[in-house]
């Protein structure tokens, strides 16, 4: 028997029992489509949160309030452990410089009827040098904006597009938390640095942010190592421990109320996060395909019993064990393959609909697909058919032709 004939026989069996085949496929369809959907949403979210991860100069560093459980462990953000006094003390260090404190202003930004919720950051001019970001249009914040506490704003690339679309933003007035600001510049895209997508942020002078929020604490601080980054990290850490009264000779990061990172460390942590997301989705996929596979095994066993006489007949006219085995195995694999393809299409469709819906509220949420996970899901579906189809197919192939023919 040729493969083509086996294929045809399997195809017929599926076509004859359309309703039942469809129900059997449901498990695999749900499994595969949820994997495709989840990974697509994951990819879109990653795009939304991270943009592209940009690589900074190796001397760029950040201090964040909060705690980290061991090196590379999860970060619990704090809010009130870094003060402006701390910054002033840090500025006396000789191994680190260019400290740029950032204060967050909560609230939406509006221009006319366009409204978005970018994060508004109050900061100082050398922040832009620390992040290696330049102005695409207009100018950056300057010292004069600081001393005069001018109500001016510089927009990240995506934030500018959200608010103004194709219009020229320069000179326009936007409102952030009930205060009006004049747009003086738009940044070139930089992507994600230190866990933040700066393209979606907007920047106002630090003194303005302080007076609007009345905050005594900073959200985070970026700075540059003068020469050696390890040396800078050690000096910053020991100075802050001393000022915060933390005794920590064994260098246990659990005890600190702040975190110091280089840009490379920050990017590594992001990598870890997306890895665990992938593992999580793979687990879900595994479970749903297992359930789908058991369904397939069940229905194939029913099919073998139901078609005992057919098997007997095929053997009586000369089918070998191998022919029967392949026929039923093909049938199971075909069911899972069709189900897998339906699942992929369904997952893509759902992801697309979700993206279309979310895009109305967050224009930077872009429909994205994870092609490798689609291929893996499809391969897993076929593998499920192979594994769970094998036992029923073996049962079928071992039937004695005489008993099978007599089966009522």
């Amino acid at each position, binding site marked *: 028997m040729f493969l083509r*004939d086996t294929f045809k026989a399997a195809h017929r069996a599926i076509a004859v029992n359309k309703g039942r085949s469809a129900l059997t496929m449901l498990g695999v369809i749900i499994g595969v489509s949820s994997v495709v959907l989840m990974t697509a949403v994951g990819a879109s979210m990653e795009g939304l949160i991270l943009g592209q991860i940009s690589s900074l100069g190796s001397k760029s560093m950040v201090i964040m309030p909060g705690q980290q459980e061991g090196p590379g462990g999860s970060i619990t953000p704090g809010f009130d452990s870094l003060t402006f006094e701390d910054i002033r003390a840090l500025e006396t260090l000789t191994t680190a410089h260019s400290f740029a404190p950032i204060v967050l202003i909560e609230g939406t930004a509006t221009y006319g009827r366009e409204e978005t919720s970018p994060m508004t950051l109050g900061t100082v001019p050398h922040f832009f040098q620390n992040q290696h970001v330049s102005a695409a249009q207009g100018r950056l914040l300057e010292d004069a904006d600081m001393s005069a506490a001018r109500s001016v704003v510089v927009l990240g690339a995506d934030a500018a597009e959200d608010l103004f679309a194709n219009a020229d933003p320069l000179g326009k007035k936007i409102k952030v938390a009930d205060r009006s600001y004049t747009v003086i510049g738009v940044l070139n895209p930089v992507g994600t640095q230190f866990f933040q997508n700066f393209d979606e942020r907007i920047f106002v002078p630090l003194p303005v942010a302080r007076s609007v929020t009345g905050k005594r604490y900073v959200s985070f601080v970026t700075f540059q190592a003068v020469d050696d980054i390890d040396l800078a990290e050690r000096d910053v850490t020991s100075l802050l421990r001393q000022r915060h009264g933390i005794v920590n000779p064994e260098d246990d990061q659990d005890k600190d109320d702040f975190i110091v990172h280089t840009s490379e460390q920050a990017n590594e942590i992001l990598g870890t996060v997306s890895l665990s997301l992938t593992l999580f989705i793979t687990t879900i996929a595994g479970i749903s395909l297992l359930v789908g596979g058991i369904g397939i095994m069940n229905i194939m066993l029913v099919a073998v019993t139901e078609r005992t*006489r057919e098997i007997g007949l095929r053997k009586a*006219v000369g*089918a070998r*064990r191998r022919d029967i085995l392949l026929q039923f195995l093909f049938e199971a694999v075909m069911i899972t393959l069709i189900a897998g393809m339906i699942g992929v299409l369904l997952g893509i469709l759902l992801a697309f609909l979700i993206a279309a819906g979310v895009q109305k509220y967050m224009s930077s949420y872009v429909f994205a697909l994870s092609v490798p996970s689609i291929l893996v899901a499809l391969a897993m579906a076929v593998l499920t058919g192979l594994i769970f189809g094998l036992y029923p197919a073996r049962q079928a192939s071992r039937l*004695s032709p005489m008993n099978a023919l007599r089966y009522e």
Partner: protein
Amino acid sequence: MLPFRYPYHTSQLSPKVIMLKKVVPLIETVDLQKSYFSGDLETPVLHGIDFVIQEGEFVSIMGPSGSGKSTLMHILGFLDTPTSGSYLFRGEKTRVLEDDALARIRATRVSFVFQAFNLLPRTTVLENVILPLLYHPTIPASEREERAMKAIAEVGLTERTTYLTNQLSGGQQQRVAIARALVTEPDIIFADEPTGNLDSASGLQVMNVLQELHDHQGSTIVLVTHEKATAEYAARIIQLLDGRISSDSRDFKRKDAKTNTDLK
């Protein structure tokens, strides 16, 4: 002990006439026994069957239910193996054959017509007749349809080729089954109560087809039945009773399905 003495029985051949290969019988059984086992309990079904069937014969194996005729047919048709004794097919011992070798013989040498037709449901006549060719080791795929059409023509169903089998009458279905048995051009066709599920008119049609195959194509046919009336369409009747051959006769007036009226 043989009930019939054949002039060229292999065991009686002297070395100098061994060249007469063509007279090696198609089927020869020597003390064929079959028992079924259920746990330690042995139920003997066949108690030593000896007979010979030559190529081109039309033989009925007749007997009441429980006489072992179906078991004998299954063994002769390579669907089952005997417990002891030997079964020679074209002079070759068959008991030692492997599963795949048995499948190959079923694909190329023997065919069956069953009482319950055993056609594939919701499938066309043509596809049913092609089925054995899918498993035939030497007939190329390109010849399948042509051969199937020829077999369908032989049973007079050319106009029904694309019908689904469940759209046909019982008699037509059994003729499809006969076409399926013919399509591989086997050495022998076993028909197991082929008229058992049919009314007498359809049964007569089926017997007519079988007789014509034998008379005009020279097919070897073994008909298994419990009805004397059906058995008499063959040229020879082997009677089975309690697992033994009780008679083997050719001296009866063979019925002709074409002219027969008592079944109509």
